[in-house]
């Protein structure tokens, strides 16, 4: 008679308290990759433009910003060529935008799976962010090309690019988790997102350097988590040639991002209990 496999014992009971259970996420890593691949492959199969879209989007955004802020608005760049300044802001901004937009609807899109299979639901918005990473990498390639074209040489700071990338992901994951959990319960949340993103793009230093914000406004301005992200990217990619928002502002911005991430995780895990019932 074989003994029951005690290692795999599960107790099912009414939920209480909050546990993030990162160990479980690790156990489900194969499923995480499978879902990420599904999302990525699914997006680019059968589309002619496919991967080109990851190039077109950052380029068009950069050009639009240049025309609006630089040519028409007359905003000058104190340092690097404006095109590069804009692109250095566009690259992390698009990662944020894609990650948040993708996460918000990810749970509802996968509602059939959520109702029929068990796995930690955190995987779903996380997989959406991985898809955004693919476009992000391509847009970094675009930046490299622009750097060469404009003859702008990078410095040792480039080595910190992965750290900046991680910061961007963390800053995007916080709002992403909040919005995906809320959207699963209240379907109109996803309509808020394009509006939030539009406003966000202007109150984030995408089309201008954050150092150009007036001193008296700096602290309030720094409540935006993307401030620290974009400043980091500018610092890494443009070697600090563009000014930042100052240490205090940076610290505030990064704290807000961390708070959003932690609270996002908590809210998500709490609302996860009822996903299968309300979705």
């Amino acid at each position, binding site marked *: *008679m*074989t*003994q*029951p*496999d*005690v290692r*795999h*014992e*599960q*107790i*099912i*009971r*009414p*939920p209480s308290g909050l546990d993030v259970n990162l160990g479980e996420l690790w156990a489900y890593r*194969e*499923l995480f990759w*499978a*879902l990420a*691949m*599904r999302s990525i*492959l*699914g997006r680019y*199969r*059968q589309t002619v433009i496919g991967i080109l879209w990851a190039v077109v989007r950052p380029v068009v955004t950069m050009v639009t910003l240049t025309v609006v802020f630089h040519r028409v608005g007359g905003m000058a760049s104190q340092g690097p060529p404006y095109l590069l300044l804009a692109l250095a802001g566009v690259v992390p901004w698009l990662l944020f935008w894609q990650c948040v937009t993708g996460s918000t609807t990810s749970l509802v899109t*996968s509602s*059939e*799976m*959520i*109702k*029929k*299979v*068990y*796995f930690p639901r955190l995987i779903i918005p996380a997989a959406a962010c991985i898809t955004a990473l693919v476009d992000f990498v391509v847009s970094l390639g675009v930046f490299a090309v622009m750097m060469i074209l404009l003859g702008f040489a990078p410095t040792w700071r480039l080595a910190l690019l992965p750290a900046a990338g991680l910061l961007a992901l963390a800053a995007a994951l916080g709002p992403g988790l909040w919005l995906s959990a*809320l959207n699963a319960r*209240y*379907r*109109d*949340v996803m309509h*808020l997102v394009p509006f939030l993103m539009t406003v966000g793009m202007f109150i984030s230093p995408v089309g201008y350097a954050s150092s150009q914000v007036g001193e008296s406004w700096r602290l309030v301005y720094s409540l935006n988590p993307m401030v620290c992200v974009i400043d980091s990217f500018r610092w890494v990619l443009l070697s600090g040639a563009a000014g930042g928002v100052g240490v205090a502002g940076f610290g505030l911005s990064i704290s807000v991002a961390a708070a959003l991430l932690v609270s996002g995780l908590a809210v998500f895990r709490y609302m996860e*209990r*009822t996903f*299968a*019932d309300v979705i």
Partner: protein
Amino acid sequence: MDNCVIAADGLGKRYRIRHGRYPQDGLRHVMADWLTNPLRRGAAKMEDLWAVRDVSFEVERGEVLGVIGRNGSGKTTLLKLLSRITPPTEGRARLTGRVGSLLEVGTGFHPDLTGRENIYLNGAILGMRRREIDAGFDEIVAFAEVERFLDMPVKRYSSGMYVRLAFAIAAHLQPEILLIDEVLAVGDVRFQAKCLGKMRDVARGGRTALFVSHNMSAVRSLCDRAMVLESGRAELFDDVDGAIRSYMATAAPHMAQQWRAGDSPPACCDNDVVVPLGMKLLDENGDILPAVVPRSRSVSVELDFELKRLDRFLTLGVAVYDATGNYLFHSLQTDGAESDWLDLRPGRNRIRARLPMEMLNEGEHRVVFLAAIHKIKWLCRPDDSNVAVSFTIAGGMSQSPYWQEGRRGLVAPIMQWRKEPAV
């Protein structure tokens, strides 16, 4: 060592239903509501709906427990609780061993991905490790019969191919505990038989399983014990036939193997001569017949009735219908020679006759009480009557290896063939 693999204790799941104006489900409505009505005056009434209530049971290693019940009785919710898809409101359950849940086939299939890619995707979703999928890959493809189409996107597959592939992947799950919800009803007849065969292998392979189904003959052949769910509450039966009988009696009273009169005589049989009191279908031992039997069994019908007065021209017996309502035949106690006619007396009578099983085809049969005054009038007309019992014939048609499945025709006799010398 404790051999109990699934132990549930007082499991319950409550949903809250709101009555009144249907709540708009948006965040803006919630906020508008809160702003205009902060004290929650006149808040909509909430009703508690317990989908599962106080369900306790234990399943031992290697056992297959069937779960049957009407639609809405809580079967799927119970599986969802055990699969951790939704948490219980009260109670606990302990599962020992890897759990695989099959609540649907083809979960997560992406239409633009190829069959090959979807096998890996769906396998991962169902909880299989990559090396497990690699190991079972060829078997899965062979079972689904889609070798030639592996590299085509599944949106190009026919619905049959799609469903065969989905089932093939799910059927190769190798967990210690399997929770299955009615996934057998996929594909054409031939594939359904294949699915049943595979399920049988799983059941005999020593795995522990919880099997929810509406297919009574599948439950009978695969399960060791069964549980009947009714409005969220469970009743366990050590004997599967007993469970099926109990389920039939409440869920489909017109499909039960016995019938009893209520307080007043049935409206369809209102006359001054005979009052039906009960009908039973019995097996060779005189016990109530199981709902599903092979043809090789002996089946008798017993009629219990009261005669108010005697009539020389009284005829009574049964009419037999098949599943689609075809009138197969009727038989009366006066069909034989007069010397064989039964001696009926005023008052209570009980008569019994063997059904000609050797004539009947596979499928559901309805046996209806019939009474008439010969050539004058109906006393109990069978066509609209609910004084009836039913049973299903499945298998046991013949010892011939060529006759193992249903055959065309209203009846299915075995004729004796003999060889004559050729001229």
